[in-house]
């Protein structure tokens, strides 16, 4: 099986030598420049084996998050249609049945993504001698592999790094984060699949020859280099090991678990938020009814207390049009639900919300069977001043136009006078400072 894979996808001896200039045999281009006895196919393979499941989790949850945004509905997308996969996403309606679903999805995405970074950096360290290979290009097949590796490393660093900066709300670039992170991931996954196909035999051989765990039993003093011919990353002039492979992997694993725990802390929240020591939403926000994390402040999108005072009206558009004051809304039958609100950035917070069910308001506007609800905010600017709920979200009895949280009026930053709270809806679609609801009947 491995041999067949290698025969089909591996590089061969021979092939026409490309007329490429050969770098001088100096500095890092000399193979004996690289001294660590730890580098080799086994170490790289172990790191890859640890990395792959985390990447799969990130890829699946990333795509599911895209589905959760229901990007085909008005106002929900910042990426536009890609013409190929968008029709498939459009067929998939994000359900409202499990309120924790989006919190779980994004928690997994960010925990796995951040936990993968130390392993990714260690993996890149383990193969760095290959960057300085001489000759830089041997055959056309070799050139193709190196080009693919450039895509793999560039997109990998790009995707993980932009993700980490996004959760800190830091944007030192000019491109839009969401589509760049999304399409960067496709480049990464495309290059990764080719890399796996080409390198799987190397991994299989390393594990067969050295065992999966056997090298972990060696202390630093017992550590020896892997056979020089097994990989270009093996040192030809190793110095004595100063740390064992198990020591290195232990440190990498500790970093990975520690970072993951910080992200779990801000994703689960509650008593675990203390774990989120350096995580962006690890700051204690207090104990009052409105003291839980805010995604965007009123001031940042130009919402003023005057706009939300007595003059505020909720416009409801269906078969009839209604204009309701906040007191009108408070006089309607209220419903209370404990629901999480989960940000794409991987943090969430669960609170007790009270308000008027969306289906109730639809009924008042004369709309029975709902196809969708278009929700508009007072806010100016920001990517999501409006959103459209799909039929399942609109019909769920827990979907609220919330007026209070934890028994108190919403604070201005949490969307006073009224905000949307819908089970399993991406946080930013839970529109704050709502001024208009437009109901579409089925």
């Amino acid at each position, binding site marked *: 099986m491995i041999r067949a894979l290698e025969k089909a996808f*591996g590089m061969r001896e021979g092939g026409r030598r490309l007329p490429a200039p050969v770098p001088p045999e100096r500095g890092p281009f000399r193979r004996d420049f690289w001294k660590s006895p730890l580098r080799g196919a086994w170490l790289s393979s172990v790191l890859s084996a640890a990395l792959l499941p985390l990447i799969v989790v990130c890829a699946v949850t990333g795509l599911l998050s895209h589905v959760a945004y229901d990007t085909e509905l008005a106002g929900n997308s910042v990426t536009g249609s890609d013409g190929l996969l968008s029709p498939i996403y459009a067929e998939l309606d994000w359900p409202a049945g499990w309120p924790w679903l989006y919190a779980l999805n994004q928690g997994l995405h960010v925990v796995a993504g951040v936990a993968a970074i130390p392993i990714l950096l260690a993996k890149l360290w383990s193969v760095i001698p290959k960057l300085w290979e001489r000759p830089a290009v041997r055959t056309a097949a070799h050139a193709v592999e190196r080009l693919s590796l450039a895509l793999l490393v560039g997109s990998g660093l790009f995707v993980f790094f932009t993700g980490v900066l996004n959760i800190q709300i830091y944007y030192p670039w000019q491109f839009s984060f969401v589509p760049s992170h999304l399409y960067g991931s496709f480049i990464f996954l495309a290059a990764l699949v080719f890399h796996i196909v080409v390198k799987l035999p190397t991994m299989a051989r390393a594990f067969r020859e050295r065992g999966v765990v056997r090298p972990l039993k060696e202390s630093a*003093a017992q550590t020896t280099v892997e056979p020089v011919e097994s990989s270009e990353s093996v040192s030809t002039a190793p110095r004595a090991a100063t740390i064992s492979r198990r020591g290195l992997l232990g440190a990498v694993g500790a970093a990975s678990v520690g970072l993951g725990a910080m992200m779990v802390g801000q994703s689960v929240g509650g008593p675990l938020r203390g774990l989120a020591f350096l995580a962006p939403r690890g700051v204690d926000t207090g104990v009052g009814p409105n003291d839980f994390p805010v995604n965007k402040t009123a001031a940042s999108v130009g919402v003023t207390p005057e706009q939300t005072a007595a003059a505020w009206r909720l416009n409801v558009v269906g078969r009839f049009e209604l204009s309701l004051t906040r007191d009108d809304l408070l006089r309607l039958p209220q419903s209370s639900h404990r629901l999480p609100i989960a940000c794409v950035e991987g943090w969430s917070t669960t609170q007790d919300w009270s308000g008027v069910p969306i289906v109730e308001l639809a009924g008042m506007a004369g709309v029975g069977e709902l196809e969708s609800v278009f929700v508009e905010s007072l806010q100016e600017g920001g990517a999501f001043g409006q959103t459209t709920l799909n039929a399942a979200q609109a019909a769920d009895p827990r979907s609220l136009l919330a007026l209070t949280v934890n028994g108190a009026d919403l604070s201005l930053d949490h969307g006073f006078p009224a905000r949307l709270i819908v089970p399993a809806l991406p946080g930013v679609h839970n529109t704050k400072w709502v001024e208009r609801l437009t109901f579409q009947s089925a």
Partner: protein
Amino acid sequence: MASLRRLGDEYGAGPLHLLSALASFAVAGWAFMHVFQLGAPFNFLLWFVAAIVAHDLILLPLYSLVERGAHRLAPARARPAGAPKAGAAPSALNHLRVPAALSGLLLLLFFPLVLGVAEEDYAAASGLSTDVYLGRWLLLSGVFFLASGVVYAIRRGRAARA
């Protein structure tokens, strides 16, 4: 078949290698195309290339150099080849490099919060300040070095007694 074999001889790998590479490049090209349509394509490319340069040509050489310096400061005990002597003194080097690496990694990942460069957007979004993060990072780093030092002292003490 013969022409396929000849292609392999020229190319340096089997036809499936070429086909799967082309499929991979096609998907990457499709993704690039969409990035280009969304604006700021050159900035995207710049960051893409900068990521490789920043890691492969700056970050990795930099921490390797720091490592080399640390080797001189805290040489790992030279041991004869073969099994370690029972009770050999532990290496101070690892007790320095592990906390240093953890602390450096945290700074690398969370520098926007730790150094406060994300303050403006972070405050606008969350209503909070990045102020606390420098102190937290220093505290965590201190804990790493302290814990590592304590473990080192215990191991040394144990080695001396053995």
